[in-house]
């Protein structure tokens, strides 16, 4: 939280400050407690998202219990995204599935709970890609998620896969510390998934933009006034929409490709936890969609 200056200047303790490189936040062990605590706070602050956050909190607490260090951390050639996914341990994930299904049936929203029940009970699930409930088929479900290029559709089977594999992915990405070579990569340099949210971190008088991966939560530098989807740079075509209700979160849209993502401005609220604040401001997503914009990638709660 107390990151020292990051305006590209080395400090005498260069160990702590990287010289001449925008300091990406240290990719240390996922701080689940921080996310859980933030989810609780925001549930109080934004009643509109209370139900969603309450469920998300359960999911976070579940993810916290999962062993993340099962993914082999034998680092593949940096940025080899396929190899990255190969290293995630599906068997463990399959073992963890029943517990998740139970949790969702107990605490999840109706449709998701019903689905959990069906997967658990081995009924045929009609959503595509089809997935069946034998453990082999469950494994296949997780696998199909990993192989899908857009590794985060809103389909609920993707929901289960994301919940189970995300801790492994985060752990793996952290151990690999993949850094993007340029500041205009629109997909995660570690796992290749699309960005979930942008975060602005203090850099001098300004806010340096990073994108947060929707799967492995890697943050990579992504320069300002540039559309992550179509590469638009015309500032007139890149409106930012903000609401008084959310001081630090805004919609960063593109009039050219009509995609958007939200950004969390840490120069306004240093206590924000991007992935959680992103979910807590679902009403901004609704506003954006109503106004004809498409989200780059829906979040874990399906928004």
């Amino acid at each position, binding site marked *: 939280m107390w990151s020292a200056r990051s305006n590209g*200047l080395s400090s*005498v303790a260069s160990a702590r400050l990287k*010289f*001449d490189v925008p300091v990406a936040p240290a990719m240390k062990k996922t701080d689940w407690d921080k996310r859980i605590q933030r989810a609780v706070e925001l549930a109080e602050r934004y009643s509109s998202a209370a139900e969603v956050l309450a469920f998300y909190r359960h999911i976070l607490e579940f993810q916290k219990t999962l062993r993340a260090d099962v993914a082999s951390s034998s680092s593949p050639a940096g940025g080899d995204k396929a190899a990255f996914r190969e290293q995630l341990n599906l068997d463990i994930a399959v073992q963890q599935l029943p517990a998740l299904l139970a949790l969702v049936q107990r605490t999840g929203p109706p449709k998701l709970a019903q689905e959990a029940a069906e997967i658990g009970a081995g009924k045929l699930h009609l959503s595509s890609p089809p997935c069946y409930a034998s453990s082999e088929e469950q494994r296949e479900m997780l696998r199909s998620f990993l192989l899908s290029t857009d590794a985060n559709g809103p389909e609920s089977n993707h929901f289960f896969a994301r919940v189970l594999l995300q801790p492994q992915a985060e752990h793996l990405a952290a151990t690999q510390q993949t850094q993007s*070579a*340029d500041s*205009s990569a629109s997909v995660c340099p570690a796992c290749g998934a699309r960005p979930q949210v942008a975060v602005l971190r203090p850099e001098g008088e300004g806010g340096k933009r990073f994108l947060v991966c929707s799967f492995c939560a890697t943050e990579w530098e992504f*320069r300002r006034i540039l559309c992550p989807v179509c590469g638009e740079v015309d*500032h007139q075509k890149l409106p930012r929409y903000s609401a008084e209700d959310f001081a630090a979160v805004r919609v960063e849209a593109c009039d050219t490709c009509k995609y958007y993502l939200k950004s969390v401005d840490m120069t306004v609220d240093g206590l924000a936890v991007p992935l959680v604040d992103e979910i807590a401001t679902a009403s901004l997503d609704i506003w954006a969609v109503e106004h004809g914009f498409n989200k780059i990638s829906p979040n874990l709660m399906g928004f």
Partner: protein
Amino acid sequence: MTNGWIDIKNTDMMLIMGGNPAENHPCGFKWPVEAKRNRNAKMIVVDPRFTRTAAVADLFCQIRAGADIAFLGGMINYALENNRIAKDYLVNYTNAAFIIKEGFKLPEDGLFSGFDAATKIYDKSSWNYQEGGNETGKAVLAAPTEGHEAKAALMPVSTAAKGAASTPPPPPSLPPNIAYDLSLQHPRCVYQLLKQQYSRYTPEMVERITGIPKDQFLKAADLFTSVRKNGDMKKVATIIYAVGWTQHSFGTQIIRTAAMLQLLMGNVGRAGGGVNALRGHSNIQGATDMAGIFDILPGYLKVPNPTDKDLKTYLDRITPKPAKPNEWESFNYWSNTPKFMVSFLKAMYGNAATKDNDFAFQYLPKVDRNYSWVNIWNDMYEGTVKGMFAFGMNGVMIGPDSQKNIDALKKADFLVVCEIYPDETSAFWQAPGITPDDLKQINTTVYRLPGAGFAEKDGTFVNSARWLQWKNAALPPPGDCRLDQDILAQIFLKIRELYQKEGGKFPDPILKASWAYTLPAHPSLSEIAKEINGKALADISDEKTAISLKAGQQLPGFAMLHDDGTTSSGNWLYCGSWTEAGPMMQRRGTEDPSGLGIYPNWGWSWPANRRVLYNRASCDLAGKPWDPTRSQVWWNETAQKWVGNDVPDFKPDSKPEEHMGPFIMNPEGVGRIFVPLGAMADGPFPEFYEPIESPIENPLHPSQSTNPVVKKYKTKMDKYGTPKEGYNIVCTTYRLTEHYHYWTKNNPMNVELVPEPFVEIPAELADQMGIRGGEKVKVTSARSDYIAKAMVTKRIKPMMVDGKKLYQIGMPIHWGFLGISEGEGRTAKMPANLLTPTVVDPNAYTPEFKGFLVKLEKV
């Protein structure tokens, strides 16, 4: 800057002199600080005042304003005496080994050979290389005798006198086959002459002239040259300067001395090295590149003069032929001048520029005299300049001699000012002291047009580091304000319309200037930027690079320019800034693979996106970097070409064994320690001269105290003070961190930070005169006087100069008669430049704002 802002972080040693970056470039100054923090680099600051830059320096020397050449000459002497030089670099990358013609004479008496006292012009024919081949180790000739010199000195005078009657004939050219002595022993080789020239700049002499105690100078000299201890080439030193050097009647020669020192030590072309001018304003670099000044055309092409009866004559005159030792290679890049020039004419006059009409060469005015800044005001004062356009240029405040400029404007017929704030130039008739009766006599019609602020305009600025950076317009101009380019276009189109309707003197260039902008009265700067880059006018191709272009396509770079009218380019130097790939100066890539701070994909840097100039010199003869930890470019044996982290500033396929010189813009291909022929007006080596207003006679040669080719101006406004008349305090002017020129006096925050003008006075002098801080003092020069509060400070010490005790004072320039504090009656409503003299550097025509004489009294 030969290098760039970020590159300063790569240095091991900084000499900051004639500049004050901590105060005037705070955000750029993070990089010197970075070098200190990260590389333990040392910082030497030399300045008349202990500045905020000095406050973080490792060593500070207080120098008498204007004594810089003596200090740097002393440095050169020290480096030579103590073998703190880069031998291989010197022999192979500079003209140190070249032999100079007999008859050349050093200025022991203050004059080089060839001076004509009548015209105050040098005949430079003796400032030339000797023809011939390799003289290495050959019979050593006797040093030139008196006789030689006498002859040498006499001979040219007559020719010069002849020349002076009419326009002087074009100077003789450099020999194609230059004689040289790689052992550097020949008594007339540049190296020996250099030694001889600066042997007079002993530490004792440096102390006499600069006022810097000998031991302190030696400390500085030893520290700076320590990067070249025993000729080791690993470390690099940089020299950083600003207008503290340019604003002297010998400014160009100060910079030359610095360049020579850097060549001598092998610091040019290297990361963390170079000679780095910190420009004072956001687009001064661009304005120079784009020839906002009378004596050049865009891309530093020489203006035509009346003897250029046609395009060919002109091109023959200005296109240099290679001049080098036969055994060496020279790229001589300026040999492409005809391509640059013809492409420029095509951009200017489009289809009206044809082979048959010399590409409209005659449309360009011919220049054979000095029309520079101070001459404009001088001639307006004398009545020959009737009208003036001033777009964002506050000439009354800028001076020199503001009163002369005000009185000049009184004599003009019309003045057109485009500004965003009320400025002193358009309001010259409201200057303090002008009575209602005077007003009735002032017949100047003044138009004050509201222009647009920076945030309301798009377009390109070029920073000190030669980076072109496009900015976008954030909002429209307020009220009835208009975009500057629209105002200019609308005035021009109206004039063109009048010539169409009514005819008039030589209307062709006005009627035929190309104006193919979608909205003629609102030319888009993007369209202009593309025109500046240039395009193919016919299908062209280049077999070497296998690039071929269709007519109408943007040019990828100046290598594609032609001299047959098949290409156009408004400024060859910017060719490559807006290609078919798009606007390069709009790029914002933040990657820096080498870690050297090159940022190849951020904006675009001239020439050819090269971030450090002369970077071939960062390698040894074999093409390997002098310091592998700072590898910029290198020779790739397998690929048989020059490659690297930066764009090689070199002929890409020239093998090291071809021995091509790294300084490709010189016909010799090497760095010029000795500048031959006409390149400098006042000498091939810098010599120390006193400022025009000086407290002492030049200790080197009292008989020739000041720069011999500098002319004083003659109007009754032009008075120059002497110590005899009581002007015995040296005064200098400068800017503050908190303010910007004559602009932020309109911003409350900046005014709060520094509300009022002041005069910095040495505590000792103040005590003598009974002046206490905050009391009003009057500073008087031969021109005028100036009243402000005294800042009594220990940061300016009295100094002993040539045995005499001397005081220096200084004053910031930011206040005039229009502004927040001015409006509140908290200033004397006087521009600081009321005091400064009208006299200019003979090479750059920059006025001598720094180091003039004043009297000081309590009010």
